[in-house]
């Protein structure tokens, strides 16, 4: 059977499964809608958290980015998993004991202030929308590549699917769909990885194959380092970023992970405090399966790719090369006219993306309008294709290629759904119920939640159709924002009894503004008004991705100083803090 037929079948079957679960898990109350009724088992919650967490960026882009950046890619591996340790030790158990629906709920109650609640809502919305943009883009890429439809059509199909299971089931529907999505995505990621590891090193376990040797007896990592040096790249295992920047980015990602509202909210769905601790551990275990495989995939894919293309003639290229050229994710311009592909260090193009001309070159290649003639390098490869094209590069059977498509969709959809839920909860619960219309009925609130999901899906879809840059780069910035906004307020709320509302609010406002300012100044610019400044102007050599660490420290310091200069929080608030510190005893675990 052809790849396309396989893809339609596998995607069709998995989507039918998601719909079935959504209908089975229809939510009848706001408690079911927001926190799945609070009765999810730690195992299911662990899987759901893992799927919620592992986005299109983890599945599609991460191995690709590591593949192109080598050691520098470690920031994602350590950052995104290390944050779980913070979550499990510093946040999950206490937030579960506190026992409300959302992060702004905690902030609003702990800091006895609707201003604090509103600031938290705004932070949650900024973080979630930044992040969801990347997911919708991921859906579009997968659809357009594997089902041969336009990216816009792909995004619209994705929107429709997310809408059905989020709209009907709320958190309950999302949780159980995510359990299935986890299984789909991990299977889809592992099967090709195991095949390729076995092909290249004779060891079926990718984590070990990565440290193994190829058939000629050379360690694969040494071989890759040598290939890199020969072609003028930095050694794969050394990387190019400064130690300070690697450190800053890693910490920003760790803290950002712990501050992501759609992940935190998952710990409200388990019955007990001890379940919250345990499910954080299980979530990381499930995540670690993919996260320790990704760097192995990156090494195999990189070695495979260099060996396939370097100094080989274009006409001898395998089918996958030409297929991906058609979609514009690979581009080649024969700068020296020898018909062979020179893949060496340096930018092949002027600008980030290839611009194609009509017509074909001497060897049948697509003509590129913007080759960078100052550089030797002739080949442009989009980083996002490394995982998607990997099975084709390694000549795996068609069903494996189709499986990767289904897995990529599962990853993107589950994360998008989790984020959309946070957005809708922030609006319906934290804004409407808690502030605008406190006497709204449960039914009315449920309706408001569903309407806000609808609006959020449309906005997210627009982001997907008009994407703001590389999938993972955008997501990485969302972490900086989460680190700069929530994390200090939550940590201080639990560990510093003296922390008051003045301190927390000032900290969140200063941290978030600083991060946004830096992001706009050095990363995105303001369209039509201001262009981003170049890397030479970074403060202390800190990249925008790593700046979350700086903004977080500023948030902590500002909160602390302001809180000590103003009045201590009221007695009943101090009692709340003491109460959340113990799992039971001074009263039952708080009821919803």
């Amino acid at each position: 059977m052809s790849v396309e037929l396989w893809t339609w079948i596998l995607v069709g079957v998995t989507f039918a499964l998601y719909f079935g679960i959504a209908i089975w898990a229809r939510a009848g109350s706001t408690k079911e809608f927001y926190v799945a009724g609070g009765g999810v088992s730690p195992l299911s919650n662990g899987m759901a958290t893992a799927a919620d967490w592992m986005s299109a960026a983890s599945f599609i882009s991460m191995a690709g980015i590591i593949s192109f950046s080598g050691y520098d890619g470690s920031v994602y591996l350590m950052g995104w998993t290390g944050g779980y340790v913070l979550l499990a030790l510093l946040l999950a158990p206490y937030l579960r004991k506190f026992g409300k629906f959302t992060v702004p709920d905690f902030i609003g109650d702990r800091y006895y202030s609707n201003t604090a609640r509103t600031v938290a809502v705004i932070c949650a919305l900024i973080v979630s929308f930044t992040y969801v943009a990347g997911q919708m883009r991921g859906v579009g890429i997968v659809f357009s590549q594997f089902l041969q439809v336009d990216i816009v059509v792909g995004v619209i199909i994705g929107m429709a699917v997310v809408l059905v299971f989020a709209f009907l089931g709320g958190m309950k529907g999302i949780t159980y769909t995510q359990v299935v999505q986890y299984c789909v995505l991990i299977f889809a990621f592992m099967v090709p990885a195991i095949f390729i590891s076995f092909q290249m090193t004779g060891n079926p376990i990718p984590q070990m194959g990565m440290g193994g040797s190829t058939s000629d007896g050379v360690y694969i990592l040494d071989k890759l380092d040598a290939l890199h040096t020969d072609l003028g790249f930095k050694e794969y295992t050394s990387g190019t970023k400064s130690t300070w920047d690697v450190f800053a980015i890693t910490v920003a990602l760790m803290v950002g992970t712990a501050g992501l509202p759609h992940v935190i909210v998952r710990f409200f769905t388990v019955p007990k405090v001890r379940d919250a601790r345990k499910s954080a551990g299980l979530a990381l275990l499930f995540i670690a399966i993919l996260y320790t495989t990704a760097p192995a995939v990156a090494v195999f894919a990189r070695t495979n790719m260099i060996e396939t293309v370097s100094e080989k003639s274009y006409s001898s290229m395998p089918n996958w090369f030409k297929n991906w050229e058609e979609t514009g994710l690979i581009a080649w311009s024969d700068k020296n006219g020898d018909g062979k592909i020179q893949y060496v260090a340096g930018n092949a193009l002027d600008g980030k993306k290839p611009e194609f001309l009509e017509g074909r070159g001497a060897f049948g290649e697509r003509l590129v309008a913007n080759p960078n003639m100052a550089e030797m390098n002739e080949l442009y490869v989009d980083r996002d294709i490394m995982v998607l094209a990997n099975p084709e590069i390694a000549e795996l059977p068609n069903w494996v290629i189709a499986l990767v498509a289904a897995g990529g969709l599962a990853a993107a959809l589950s994360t998008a759904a989790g984020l959309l839920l946070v957005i809708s909860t922030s609006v319906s619960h934290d804004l409407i119920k808690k502030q605008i219309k406190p006497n709204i009925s449960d039914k009315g609130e449920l309706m408001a939640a569903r309407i806000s999901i609808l609006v959020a899906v449309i906005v997210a879809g627009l982001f997907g159709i008009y994407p703001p840059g590389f999938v993972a780069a955008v997501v990485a910035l969302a972490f900086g924002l989460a680190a700069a906004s929530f994390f200090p307020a939550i940590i201080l709320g639990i560990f510093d009894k003296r922390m008051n509302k003045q301190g927390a609010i000032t900290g969140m406002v200063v941290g978030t503004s600083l991060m946004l300012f830096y992001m706009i100044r050095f990363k995105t610019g303001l369209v039509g008004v201001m262009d981003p400044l170049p890397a030479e102007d970074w403060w202390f050599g800190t990249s925008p991705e790593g700046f979350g660490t700086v903004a977080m420290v500023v948030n902590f310091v500002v909160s602390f100083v302001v809180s000590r200069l103003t009045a201590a929080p009221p007695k009943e608030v101090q009692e709340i803090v003491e109460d959340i510190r113990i799992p039971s005893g001074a009263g039952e675990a708080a009821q919803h």
Partner: protein
Amino acid sequence: MSEDKTKAKAYWKENLRYLTILLVIWFLVSCGAGILFKDYLNQFSLGGFKLGFWFAQQGSIYVFVILIFVYVYLMNKLDKKYGYEEE
């Protein structure tokens, strides 16, 4: 101070001690071995891995998983010791 409060204080103090120890290990394997001391550790190798690179891309993640389960174990024991277990 009531007996309940004293007990809660003692529980919290032990909890903080566990947190400190676990987070120090957390920091040492990731930011320490994987980043700050990477170049030094890269002189040594583990099979086909340079050691610093291994910590950055594999080792720290394994340690993270273990750390959380150790924490779960310690805290369950601590809950029992102070009678804070949930039904």
